[in-house]
């Protein structure tokens, strides 16, 4: 079914890696030393922004992180080992919109230097071993298809097998429409796995980042024992545009942002990126024997 073999892919990936490495650690603004903050429009020197964990020093806007950056932020150096890296999406519906889904997958792989919209593995957070899943918005908008669902499910199972707390960092536009009903079924699959984890007595911690919407929110993103959110992240079920079209009125300022969710009881704690690891550590220590 796949038009690219896994071997071929890795060859391409290696080659691409050398080219993109320098860029990948940076923001997605090619050949530019400066960037305007998306929120306050302050002009920021990219090196400074990166040194500040990609948080605007003027207005605290949290720029998106790649999954690699997120892992670096959370895990003790060198402790992260990826699992199930080779699971790939396939166009089982023969679905084509402006381009065939198969091509979209391959393009996304090359463009993002990722295999899919989530990276899962084992790592340590302040010397506490954890099972970790980190979504990446740069791969098809972090959309959840069979692979995302499967990898989240497997990392929950890995947690059960090794008695590890499970942490998932979300960043997703929702279900992957190119996989039709099967993407919907991932909501059921992941939620069922998390039910097992819960009965196992293991903690499940969600870190909500910008944006987390749709089927992802309405399944594993909202099932944490603890919900941590980064400031200002868009978190919701329906997208703001869909809601505006439905109710035919403007949405209030701050609607569906982390602070809104906190005040409506859905988020436990909003944490600035610089404090994320230390807060996570405190919470993990609550659970650790």
């Amino acid at each position, binding site marked *: 079914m796949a038009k690219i073999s896994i071997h071929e892919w890795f060859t391409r990936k290696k080659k691409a890696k050398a080219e993109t490495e320098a860029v990948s650690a940076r923001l997605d603004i090619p050949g530019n030393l400066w960037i305007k903050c998306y929120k306050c429009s302050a002009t920021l020197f990219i090196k400074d922004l990166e040194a500040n964990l990609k948080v605007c020093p003027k207005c605290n806007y949290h720029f998106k992180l790649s999954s690699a950056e997120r892992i670096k932020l959370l895990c003790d150096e060198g402790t992260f080992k990826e699992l199930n890296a080779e699971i790939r*999406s396939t166009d089982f519906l023969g679905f084509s919109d402006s381009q065939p889904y198969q091509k979209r997958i391959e393009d996304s792989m090359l463009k993002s230097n990722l295999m899919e919209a989530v990276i899962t593995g084992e790592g340590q957070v302040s010397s506490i071993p954890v099972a970790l899943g980190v979504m990446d918005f740069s791969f098809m908008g972090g959309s959840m298809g*069979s692979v995302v669902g499967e990898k989240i499910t497997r990392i929950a199972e890995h947690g059960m097998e090794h008695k590890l707390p499970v942490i998932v960092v979300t960043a997703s536009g929702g279900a992957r429409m190119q996989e039709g009903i099967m993407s919907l*079924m991932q909501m059921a699959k992941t939620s069922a796995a998390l039910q097992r984890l819960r009965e196992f007595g293991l903690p499940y911690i969600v870190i909500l980042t910008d944006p987390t919407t*749709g089927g992802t929110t309405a399944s594993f993103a909202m099932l944490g024992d603890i919900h941590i959110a980064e400031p200002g992240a868009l978190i919701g079920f329906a997208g703001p545009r*869909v809601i505006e079209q*439905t109710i035919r009125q403007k949405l209030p300022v701050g609607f569906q942002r982390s602070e809104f969710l906190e005040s409506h009881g859905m988020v436990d704690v909003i944490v600035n990126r610089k404090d994320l690891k230390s807060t996570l550590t405190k919470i993990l220590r609550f659970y650790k024997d």
Partner: protein
Amino acid sequence: MAEAKNGIKNLLEFEKPLVPIFKKIEELKAVSAHGMDMTEEIKMLQKRIETLRREIFQNLSPIQIVQLARHILRPTTLDYINMMVEDFVELRGDRNYGDDPALVGGVGRLNGKPVLVIGHQKGHTTKELLARNFGMANPEGYRKALRLMRVAQRANRPIISLVDTPGAYPGIGAEERGQSEAIAKNLREMAALTVPFVTVITGEGGSGGALGIGMGNRVLMLQYSIYSVISPEGCASILFRDATRAPEAATASKITAKDLLEFDVIDEIIKEPVGGAHNDPSASAQNIQVSVTKHIEELSKLSPRELIADRYRKYRKMGIFIES
């Protein structure tokens, strides 16, 4: 309740070849009223309608099935409950915030045995649809459903969920009160139910709003119902950037019962009467009742632990991907 309306008024576009025959019948009826006996002729014409209808329904396109699934006279949850469930007592409220008229539930008996039924409620008139928010539930609807499922669980009674919704309601209040949380929690808790649980998609199975009460051990679909991650219109407007390409999206997304049976997402297709469920609601109810009863009986042989395992197996295997 949706009465059988074979009349000309409620025909769908693709049923229009029937129009001349219906008109002819009306003419003959008018003549009959003046004393001439046209019974035989009318009977013949009615047979012709049936034959032609059967032909038309032999080869429906996905978008035509979408139209049937959304037909304003299509029986919805309370219709089926009235036809199938004896001694029904509707139970309201989420014990928390409100009662959602778009998602109803209660207790009663199916073939003499106690069951709990929940389902999305639409309506057959604009007034009814408005009162039921077009079957689009708010978080309190999903929370009511969960509360009732737990009532069933504590009573050790099977659960039947009837799915008929365009989707969970995308409104400000819904987001404020945690639409995502409500649906997600239902998914997790449905996985843990210790009682037999059968879901029937009776009309529109709209995305998370459908799945939010739809994680049965068995998922059955009425022949002309649909089940999808996004509406054909939504899919077309987002992916094709052209809402008028909905027919194409309906085909591409594989949302009919036949497609979903092939993908093993559902377990069985329940036949509808010719012309669709709204043409003969009680026949449709009868078909559902037979099928649901069979599945409940099968599931009733499983222990609570086995029921959970059965459900887990079902959903654990969902997904198509390459691993090498």
